[in-house]
């Protein structure tokens, strides 16, 4: 895991001054590779995959973002 972080940090450093398109493509490729790497341990995504907050009536609600949130 540490190796993955080191590689990621190194890649991010190398991309720091690159154009946005290169940054986005590198990040997307890495994300695809990371997801592909987990396919062998996960058989299937849950059928009811969902995330988010609702009120008591089922309406979608969201918090205002706090100033100190990182």
């Amino acid at each position: 895991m540490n190796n993955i972080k080191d590689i990621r940090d190194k890649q991010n450093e190398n991309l720091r001054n690159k154009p946005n398109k290169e940054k986005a493509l590198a990040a997307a490729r890495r994300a695809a590779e990371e997801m592909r790497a987990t396919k062998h341990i996960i058989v299937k995504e849950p059928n009811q995959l969902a995330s988010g907050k609702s009120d008591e009536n089922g309406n979608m609600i969201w918090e205002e973002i706090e100033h100190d949130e990182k």
Partner: protein
Amino acid sequence: MKEKLEKQYDIYRIEALRTANEILSSQRNGVSLTQADNRAYSAFQKWENNPHRAKTWDWPNTYMSWKLQYPKRFEAAAWKGGKLVGLSLGRPTYAGTGLRLNFIEKAPQSEISLLDITYIALSAYAALIGADHINIMHPVNAFVRDYYVRKGFSYNAKSDCCTRRV
């Protein structure tokens, strides 16, 4: 100010989805991503009242509200074979160092891996706006939460979100 931000971040949204679609097309799984538009709202009606949904969320109204309020939002509609298979919506954290995925929902009885697909676009968008982590907010149940954790996210009980560095 809001209009200027909307234009600026629309370029990022388009670029993030274009990049994700480039990766997805190379995977040859027939999945693609677009922004949430009238076509997505219309397609959503086909599964809006499906009893197998985890939540009965009203996506079109929420999208329209977010489009007016949050110019820096992330939004994506996932498609396979002309069918809408997932929707997602998020925005950067206050300091802009992270990207929150506030809502995501896979279409009922859909056989895709929505997280994998969405994560590619989220990562591209995070890179474009300078965010270094992604938070998926409020997984709807323990199965979904554990799935994110097995996919490499860390669960934070205090804020009820799953986080991953990008």
